[in-house]
């Protein structure tokens, strides 16, 4: 319930002032604050046990949440506590989603296709041919599916980053990627 506000540190007061300026529309202050948030959320996510590969996702989701929640920050209160509450929640979301995914992916045939055994003496020429076929198949995909593959698989953007770049919703990107992988699998198996 109501908690006693601890005295704020100088760094916290500075961050609070930057957020107050951002609330008034100061883009430079906002940029500076978000850059500082990256390190804070990164440390927080690691402490919460988020895996290394997912920490950047948590940072991005938290930055997006900070943007959406901006109007709820009260400059009389600690900015760091406000940020930590959001970051913690996004870290918990990531941990839960990982748990669900591991539960589903115990049997994942796609994983064998995505990560072939490199100890098999595959010839470099065969690999080059496979790469050429794949590029061709990607080029034949419908635009939305091709965009999802390019952003998420080739450029290795996170979902939120890809959503920001393409203007599509995260859900739509996931669906497009899923459909694209299915189409590619069928196309490559058929050859």
């Amino acid at each position: 319930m109501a908690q006693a506000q601890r005295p704020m540190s100088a760094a916290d007061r500075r961050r609070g002032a930057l957020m107050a300026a951002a609330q008034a529309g100061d883009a430079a202050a906002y940029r500076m604050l978000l850059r500082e948030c990256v390190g804070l959320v990164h440390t927080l996510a690691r402490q919460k046990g988020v895996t290394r590969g997912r920490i950047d996702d948590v940072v991005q989701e938290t930055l997006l949440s900070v943007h959406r929640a901006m109007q709820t920050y009260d400059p009389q209160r600690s900015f760091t506590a406000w940020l930590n509450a959001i970051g913690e929640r996004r870290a918990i979301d990531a941990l839960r989603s990982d748990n669900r995914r591991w539960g589903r992916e115990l049997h994942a045939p796609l994983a064998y296709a995505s990560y072939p055994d490199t100890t098999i003496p595959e010839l470099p020429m065969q690999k080059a041919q496979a790469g050429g076929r794949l590029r061709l198949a990607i080029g034949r995909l419908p635009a939305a599916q091709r965009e999802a593959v390019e952003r998420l698989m080739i450029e290795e953007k996170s979902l939120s980053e890809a959503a920001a770049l393409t203007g599509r919703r995260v859900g739509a990107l996931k669906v497009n990627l899923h459909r694209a992988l299915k189409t590619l699998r069928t196309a490559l198996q058929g050859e």
Partner: protein
Amino acid sequence: MSAAPHDALIEMLATGLRPVRRLSPPALRALVWLGLVALIAIALAAVADLDRLERRLAAAPDLWLAVLGSTLTTVGAALAAFEMSMPDRKPTWAMLPLPPLLLWIGASGLGCLRGSMVPGTHIAPLHEASDCLLFILGVSVPLGGALFLLLRRGFVLRPGLTAAIGGLAVAAAAATLLNFFHPFEVAATDLALHAVAITLIIGVSRLAVGRALPR
């Protein structure tokens, strides 16, 4: 830790920045919603038989306790829901409406067990008691809509819990307002229907409204 991998996102957010209006304190927003409840209460009082209500309350002190319990539950739950719509507030705010809720449940239960009847009242048959259910559900729609609109301006980290507490505020308010048109004795069937209506409102809030709140 370098911010470089997130530069594109930071740049996009900073470029698209617009000034935002800071949200009023949660207690003030709770007061706005409680003001709406008070306005509906005044409107209902204008058409209700207040003499009969007065006679009923004078004859049974436990009814006063039940009304007090539901009123305080409304206030506590509304305040808790608005506090929880701010990211840096503790989830323990959800405990605030629990003591008045216990008073409300206890006093309503006592009404069933009381041996003597309040003069001028009767035990409601099921079809009359079902009118209570319809009243509670009907009044909950505008109250819940207004609460949802006010909560939407916040940023809810625990949407299910916040929506359930908001639903409790709505249900308690509707049950309090029902007293204006509740001339009959609180019997077990009547009480059970009230409980059904309140549980339904909290359940719908948790499942449907919780998903729609910004998080």
